[in-house]
């Protein structure tokens, strides 16, 4: 079984060369992730905001209290 597998799937070259420097691509990735991280709002923040709006709609008298604590 081992021999069959080795025959079917040859070993990779030990000195497989990296075709290009990956640092520029790495920098792009870091920039993307950083801007994505800054722009995205966690789901629980949306849930909290939604809950507050719903609560204010159900009990409008609490709106000044909510605004006071914001």
């Amino acid at each position, binding site marked *: *079984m*081992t*021999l*069959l*597998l*080795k*025959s*079917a*799937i*040859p*070993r*990779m*070259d030990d000195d*497989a*060369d*990296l*075709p*290009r*420097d*990956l*640092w520029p*691509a*790495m920098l792009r*990735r*870091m920039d993307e*992730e950083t801007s994505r991280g800054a722009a995205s709002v966690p789901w629980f923040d949306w849930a909290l905001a939604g809950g507050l709006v719903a609560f204010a709609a159900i009990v409008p008298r609490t709106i000044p209290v909510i605004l006071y604590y914001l």
Partner: protein
Amino acid sequence: MQMRDEAGSVLDKFRQGDVDAFETLFRTHQRAVFGWVLRIVREPGAAEDVTIEAFWRIHRAHARFDPERGFEPWARRIATHAALDWLRRKKPESSVPAQMWENLPAPHASDAAVAAEIRQKTVSAFGRLPAKLRVAALLAVVEERPHKEVAEALGITVAAVKLRVFRALRLLRKDLNRMGITP
């Protein structure tokens, strides 16, 4: 002595989140990480993407890095998991494209005896194995890496590597038997 101090200083700076130190480590280790990832994903384009993903994970995890344990084994472990995730995301049928294997360097002389159809079916059956078994078999059997090295890269024990390889070969044999091939 001075070089060792410099390396230690780079690792310490990296641990503190210094991007220049990260760049130094990236440039030093990108080739080794790419080579390791290529052994698992076996597609140069995908290996580049996985290498970048691995280094991104390394960058994010800088605070958890332990300079005592060395950068390379840690990076290799993260890269192995990134490659595993890539294999899991790929559909089983397309995960080991037969054409791609044929483009690889010429196999050993004894391989000439193996019929093309059997090779093709073996490659397809191997591609249907669960990713974690496939990686263990690829590294330990195909690439002939020491079990200890594979265990460190996967973050499991040597016994677990042997078990995964055993299970991979057993499943492969079963699948091939179903296709009428008796290895």
